[in-house]
């Protein structure tokens, strides 16, 4: 493999994204929607335990409609970063801006999908998908029902609208959670290891479906995973996190069109390249 062919599929932007020169390679006409500058997160130790530095000085930019993947080992602080973007946690130091504004808490502009699905067991599939719409109170009953039904179809849940979550497989449950998130048409979709609890088949199908959704939707995705193959099949850009305390050690752009065939020669090349990169990373 020559450096030239590699270049077409991915660009290594910088090893430590500096605040002065963010991502010169990416189109500068697309506005930055998330800007993190020197973000640190320290969890105070409970019951006299020492404080834990979860995130040690990270800076990055995310541009509109970009599919960004935070890739890193388990417990490295990538989920915490996602939770801070979601407004569920706050950074200890540094600034984290969403459309130029400091994040003050969660909001309907940011939908979140968790590894453990987080459905409400007393609601049907349709009821779970309608949940966000009902909570927002700016839709009529008819609108809620129509939209929820649309996303039932869209996520391949037709025939399960009136089923309760306990009767569904993991893959189906995660489809419901994704549909609930899409239903309110958020500007951002945050996904926290969404496929980690699924079997290989369900995961594969969902990767393809999320790829299609990302292509058609005017949405910025931030996706957390520890799985290289998930990252390279989905991402426009991969931010590689070091083990805790988190730093961003690589920023890699992947320019192959989605959905990507997991076993195409090109993707296997990217895979090999990623593994060599992470293998030679400072924390290895």
């Amino acid at each position, binding site marked *: 493999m020559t450096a030239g062919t590699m270049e077409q599929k991915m660009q290594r932007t910088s090893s430590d994204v500096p605040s002065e020169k963010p991502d010169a390679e990416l189109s500068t006409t697309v506005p930055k929607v998330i800007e993190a500058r020197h973000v640190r997160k320290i969890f105070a130790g409970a019951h006299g335990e020492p404080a834990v530095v979860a995130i040690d000085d990270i800076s990055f930019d995310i541009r509109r409609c970009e599919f960004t993947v935070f890739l890193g080992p388990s417990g490295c602080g990538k989920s915490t970063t996602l939770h801070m973007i*979601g407004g*569920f946690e706050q950074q200890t130091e540094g600034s984290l801006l969403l459309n130029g504004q400091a994040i003050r*808490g*969660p*909001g*309907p502009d*940011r*939908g*979140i999908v*968790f590894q*453990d699905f*987080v459905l*409400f*067991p*007393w609601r049907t599939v349709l009821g779970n998908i309608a*949940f*966000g719409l*009902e*909570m*927002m*109170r700016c839709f009529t009953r008819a609108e809620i029902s129509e939209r929820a039904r649309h996303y039932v179809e869209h996520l391949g849940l037709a025939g399960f609208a009136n089923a*309760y*979550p*306990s*009767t569904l497989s993991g893959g189906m449950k995660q489809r419901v959670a994704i549909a609930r998130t899409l239903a*309110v048409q958020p500007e951002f979709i945050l996904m926290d290891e969404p496929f980690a609890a699924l079997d290989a088949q369900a995961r594969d199908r969902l990767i393809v479906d999320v790829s299609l959704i990302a292509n058609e939707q005017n949405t910025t995705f931030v996706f957390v995973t520890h799985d290289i193959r998930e990252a390279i099949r989905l991402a426009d850009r991969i931010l590689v996190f070091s083990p805790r305390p988190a730093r961003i050690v690589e920023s890699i752009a992947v320019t192959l069109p989605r959905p990507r065939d997991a076993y195409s020669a090109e993707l296997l090349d990217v895979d090999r390249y990623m593994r060599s990169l992470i293998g030679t990373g400072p924390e290895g």
Partner: protein
Amino acid sequence: MTTIIAPDSRHRLLTLLDRYSSLWVVVVVVSIFQVVVGTGLLHNPAIPAPTAVFASLYRGLFEGQHLLFLATLDTLGRLLLGYGVAVLFGAVLGILAGRHPDFASTVHPIVALWIPLPAIVTIPVLSLWLSADEAVIVLTVIFSGWIPVYLGALQGARSISAHQLWVMRAYGASEWRQVCKVIIPGAFVHMIPSLRVGMGYAWRAVIAAEIIVQHGRGIGITIFAAREFFDVPTMYAGVLMIAVLGLALDHLVFPAVERATIKRWGLLT
């Protein structure tokens, strides 16, 4: 190909017999009593023949002034009023304590002191405060029934996951809406056993309070009055009424609630 076996009536009868097989034990014991007492083998005025008890039960329910029937209605009225308030009070306090640790640490010492108190010890004190005997009985029921409901609601509210709370908060809904749509149903899925225990407590409390307060009509009062007249079969009829009603409430109402909720949702196998 699946073969569907039509349920024949004989099969159905057998399942019915099987389901209520424990009833046979009762039938056998009652029959033995009937034989022993009826034939005069056992002659004790405190042990009436089962037929005499059933006759008294029948008279009390369907004949004359329907005394036992009316007493039962009054007892059920007090029970349901007291239990209803107890559920409301216990659930509100429990959910508040489950969601707000500060509130929990404030009310918990009081609850901890309350738990070991038998409901009836409050009756003399309540009688001093309140002139209305009816209110004393109902309050005794409330004081007794709210504790299990409180503990169940506390546990239920605590078991709502952090991620569920995050999803709830993500849509900018009002606090009240969040409580109605997530906190209350989320707590409820863990609460049915405590609602059941609370009903049991309330039953005991209402009969005990009726016997002590001696106000108006009620099963407890009927039993106590029958003792004054040495109408032993009526005393047993009252006891039987309590047992059968208690059993019916526990075996019909709560399973129905479970079928309509947690069983339907697949949370109970």
